[in-house]
């Protein structure tokens, strides 16, 4: 819940794609505007299919739009007992 480990630059890509609105993008990929808002804020991780549809709209590979931030283990977790 809350922030996910997946970051994205959809907001920036929308701006560079003729200042596409969230509603436009939502209509093109088949979701609501609120879902796009949640994805941009990192509050929702899209499904694989939705991620591919977004990548298809921007004509870019998936990994250039979405980046996975692995969790940094806290001190003591990876230390030998």
């Amino acid at each position, binding site marked *: *819940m*809350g*922030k*996910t480990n997946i970051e994205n630059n959809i907001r920036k890509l929308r701006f560079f794609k003729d200042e596409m609105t969230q509603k436009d993008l939502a209509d093109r990929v*088949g*979701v*609501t505007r*609120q*879902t796009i808002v*949640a994805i941009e*804020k*990192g*509050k*929702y991780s*899209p*499904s694989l299919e*939705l991620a591919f549809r977004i990548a298809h709209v921007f004509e870019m590979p998936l990994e250039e739009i979405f980046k996975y931030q692995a969790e940094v283990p806290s001190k003591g977790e990876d230390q030998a007992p």
Partner: protein
Amino acid sequence: MTYQEKKSIITFLTTSTVTLVYFFYVFTVYHDGSEEALNDLQLWGKAILILIPVQVIAHILLHIIFAIVHKIATGEDLPSKPDERDKLIELKANRNSNNGWMFGFLFAMGALALGYGPFIMFVVMVSAGLFSGIVETLSTLYYYRRGI
């Protein structure tokens, strides 16, 4: 507040209002004041079965009215169908609601085990239904606001 959040609140308010008014009506009209009537299993069975279509009709009417009022007040088009995020939130909220009702059911069985009559059992179960509605609404609001 999004349409789905408002709809969730309306659903809960409809369910709880209809349930409370309905049972108040049933037990003021059909109850003769005796303790036997409170523990009349047939009365409870009929009341709960009739409650189902009453709830369905109330929900349909209120959601139509809500959709019209929402469109007039905000001018926004209603979402045509829930997308993957809406469905996921609905599933998670439903799961939480079912867990809440399950605890209520266990409390109802506990009341029977402690020697209380069917009246207490049914009151606890109906209350558990209302509680699970609260849990579902709060879960929906939480997931829409904080993310999933």
